[in-house]
C-alpha cells in the first residue's frame, strides 16, 4: 500500500505520460502541481499559469524570490526562457480559445457523462471557482487527477450531487487505481494498477466501469 504522498506521486507520474511534445498545459493547485516534476526529458512542455504567463519554471532558491513572479496560488515561482507574461483577459483567451492542450485538475465528484463538481460543498464556506470553470470549458483535453475515493466513498458517480463546475467536460480520469476514459458510453477502464483487481476498482466506483478490451497495466 502506498502512503498519501506516494499515491499522489504515482498519479502525477502517470498524468505526466499524457503530456505531448509542444503541449501548453495548465496544472491545478495540489496534486496536479506535482505533474511538473515528472515531465519526460525528451518532451518540451510549456506550463501556463492563469494569473498571467506561459513558461512556469521551478520554485526559486531561498533568497532568490521575485515577488513580481508568482503562480496562481500566490507562491513565488520563476519563468523559463521563451516564456511570456500577459494580462488576465489574454490568459483566459488562451484558455477559453482552446490554446491550452491539457488542463489537469482535482475533483470532488465526476459523473459518467463527464460532469464534474470540484469547487463547492453546500453549507460549507465557498471559496469560489477561480479559473476552474473556464479551464474546464476551454481546454482541449481535461484530465482529472485524484485519489479514487474520498475515504472509501466513491467519487466516480452515475450523477454528481454537488453543484457542478462544468457539464460534460472531463476526458480522462487518473487515480491510484487506474486510468478511466470518459466516453459517450460512460466510464471505460483502460489501465489498471496491478495492485487492484477490476472488481476492486468497480467496487470503489459508483457508476458502471466498462472494461476496455485493450485493458493495460498502469506503469509509471
Amino acid at each position: 500500500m502506498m502512503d498519501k504522498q506516494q499515491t499522489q506521486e504515482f498519479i502525477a507520474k502517470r498524468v505526466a505520460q499524457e503530456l505531448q511534445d509542444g503541449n501548453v498545459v495548465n496544472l491545478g493547485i495540489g496534486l496536479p502541481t506535482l505533474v511538473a516534476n515528472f515531465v519526460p526529458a525528451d518532451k518540451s512542455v510549456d506550463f501556463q499559469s492563469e494569473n498571467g504567463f506561459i513558461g512556469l519554471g521551478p520554485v526559486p532558491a531561498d533568497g532568490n524570490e521575485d515577488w513580481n513572479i508568482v503562480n496562481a496560488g500566490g507562491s513565488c515561482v520563476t519563468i523559463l526562457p521563451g516564456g511570456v507574461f500577459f494580462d488576465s483577459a489574454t490568459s483566459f483567451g488562451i484558455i477559453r480559445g482552446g490554446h491550452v492542450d491539457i488542463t489537469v485538475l482535482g475533483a470532488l465528484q465526476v459523473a459518467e457523462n463527464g460532469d464534474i463538481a470540484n469547487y463547492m460543498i453546500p453549507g460549507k464556506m465557498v471559496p469560489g471557482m477561480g479559473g476552474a470553470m473556464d479551464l474546464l470549458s476551454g481546454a482541449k483535453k481535461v484530465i482529472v487527477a485524484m485519489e479514487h475515493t474520498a475515504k472509501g466513498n466513491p467519487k466516480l458517480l452515475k450523477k454528481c450531487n454537488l453543484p457542478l463546475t462544468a457539464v460534460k467536460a472531463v476526458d480522462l480520469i487518473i487515480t491510484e487505481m487506474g486510468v478511466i476514459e470518459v466516453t459517450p458510453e460512460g466510464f471505460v477502464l483502460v489501465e489498471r494498477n496491478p495492485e487492484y483487481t477490476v472488481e476492486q476498482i468497480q467496487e470503489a466506483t459508483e457508476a458502471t466501469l466498462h472494461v476496455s478490451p485493450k485493458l493495460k497495466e498502469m506503469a509509471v
Partner: protein
Amino acid sequence: MDKRITLKEAVDMIKDGSVIMVGGFLACGTPDKLIDALVSKGVKDLTLICNDTGTPERGVGKLVATKQFKTIYATHIGTNKETGRQMMAGETEVHLIPQGTMAEQIRAAGYGLGGFLTATGVGTEVEKGKQVLEVDGKTYLLEKPLKADFALIYADVADTKGNLKYRGSTRNFNPVMAAAADVTIVEARKVVPVGEIDANDVVVPGAFVNYIVEEK
C-alpha cells in the same frame, strides 16, 4: 499633460458607496499605497470588483478586515477567511464569478461592448438569472459588462501621460481595468518622462489613465 497627483488627492475622490475595481492577483500587482490610504480614510459601503480579496494582511484584504465593503465581486475568496465569514454572516454581499468571465466582463465595459457569449458556467450555478443563447448549435451564457466608478491599478513604470509597462505577473487584471472605470488612478512604482517608454512596448495606452500616483 502631466497626470501625476498626490496620494491624498487620489483618495479624496473616492467617497462612501463608490464602486472600485482593484488590480492584483493575491496581492501581486495591487496598488498597495492606494489601499493603505483608503484604510486610513475609512471610506465605507464600497463595492469591490477584484480577482480575490487577498489575505487579511495583504492587498484588498486590509479593506475587508476593516469592513469597508458592502458588496464584493470576486473569482476566489479562499485565501481570506474574513471575507468568507462576512459572506456567511450576511454582512457582506459576495458575488463569485469565473475568472475568465470576470476578465472579459471588465474588458467589455472598457471596450464598449454590450456583453459577450461564453460557454463557461453553462449548466452550473453561474447560469442562474442569465440569458442563455443558442448560437450555431452551441449553448452560451450572455455575460454583461462590469464597470466601476474608479479603477485603482498598479504599474511598474508609467510615463507622465499614463502609458504603462509591467513586470512579471503583476499585470493580471490591471490592463483591462484601466479602461473600465469612469476614473482610472494608477499607482506606479516609477514615473518617467514622456518619450522614455518605447511606443512599441507600452502595455496600457495613456488614453485610459486619468491620474498617476508615484510610489515613493
